[in-house]
């Protein structure tokens, strides 16, 4: 497979990979790195990519796993550098700025959701995947996905309603 063919295959879903990474990792820089990493992994396994029925779902699963791993090691990193608080606080400040930068209130609430609900909501309401595809990507069954989705949607609605009420009173 040439590089051009590869780019043609990944172009339709590279934005989705980026948004998923962004949702999990919050920081745009980290998300861009993650996309780069995932694309590199896909390129290394390019001989197999055509044998997958849906390279997109495969890439999304890969992104999810990679980002969650990153998140885990990042949190571990935060824990270890607690004493040298210069870097730690700087990173957190940057995260905060990035989190506030151009991200709407809905996504702020979304960030507070449990990981699984966040992912389901992202894949369904933002990327508009079918339940079957989400099940494939997240390696969960459809019922669990519907439950998580319902909870996520309800939480967001409740939080937004709360905020509106504060605004009024």
């Amino acid at each position, binding site marked *: 497979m040439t590089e051009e063919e590869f780019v043609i295959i990944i*172009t339709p879903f590279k934005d989705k990979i980026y948004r998923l990474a962004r949702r999990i990792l919050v920081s745009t820089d980290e998300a861009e790195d993650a996309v780069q990493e995932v694309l590199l992994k896909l390129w290394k396994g390019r001989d197999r990519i055509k044998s997958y029925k849906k390279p997109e779902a495969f890439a999304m699963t890969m992104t999810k796993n990679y980002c969650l791993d990153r998140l885990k090691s990042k949190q571990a990193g935060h824990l270890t550098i607690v004493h040298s608080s210069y870097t730690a606080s700087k990173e957190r400040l940057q995260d905060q700025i990035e989190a506030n930068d151009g991200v709407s209130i809905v*996504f702020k609430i979304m960030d507070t959701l449990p990981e699984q609900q966040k992912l389901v909501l992202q894949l369904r309401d*933002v990327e508009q995947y079918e339940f079957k595809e989400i099940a494939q990507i997240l390696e969960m069954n459809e019922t669990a996905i*519907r439950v998580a989705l319902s909870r996520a949607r309800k939480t967001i*609605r409740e939080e*937004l309603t709360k905020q*509106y009420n504060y605004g009024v009173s």
Partner: protein
Amino acid sequence: MESVKLKTLLNSYLEGTTTLAQESQLRNYFAITEVAPDLAPFKEMFDDFSKVEAETYNKPVSINRPNFWQKPWQYGIAAILVIGVGVSLFMLPGDGLSSEERLAIKQYEEFKTHMQMISGELNNGIGELAYLSEFEKASEQIFK
């Protein structure tokens, strides 16, 4: 959309039982309609969910990133070559002598040939002396 239908749709949306088609129906509805305050959270949700689609990955896709460990065998060969060249440079002079030492050996060889020539001449001289002593013996016998 009638409000009754909207309510049922929103309820099933919250339960996670709407289809994609129904969801895009809701999305379109909230995108163009001003809604009552109690539905405002839904409008916000759908608006934000559509906005995020503008978030795109604009960096060029570069997969040929130079990766040091991509081809370790090449580095192996390079390392062996470097070590080989180093070792052979160390070993090549063979006798392990410096230029001064080699000059000294050359001079020693020349000195040796000179000395051999001299000793050859001396041996000739000793030969002549043997004749001389023969001659003396003979003359002693004659003039006794």
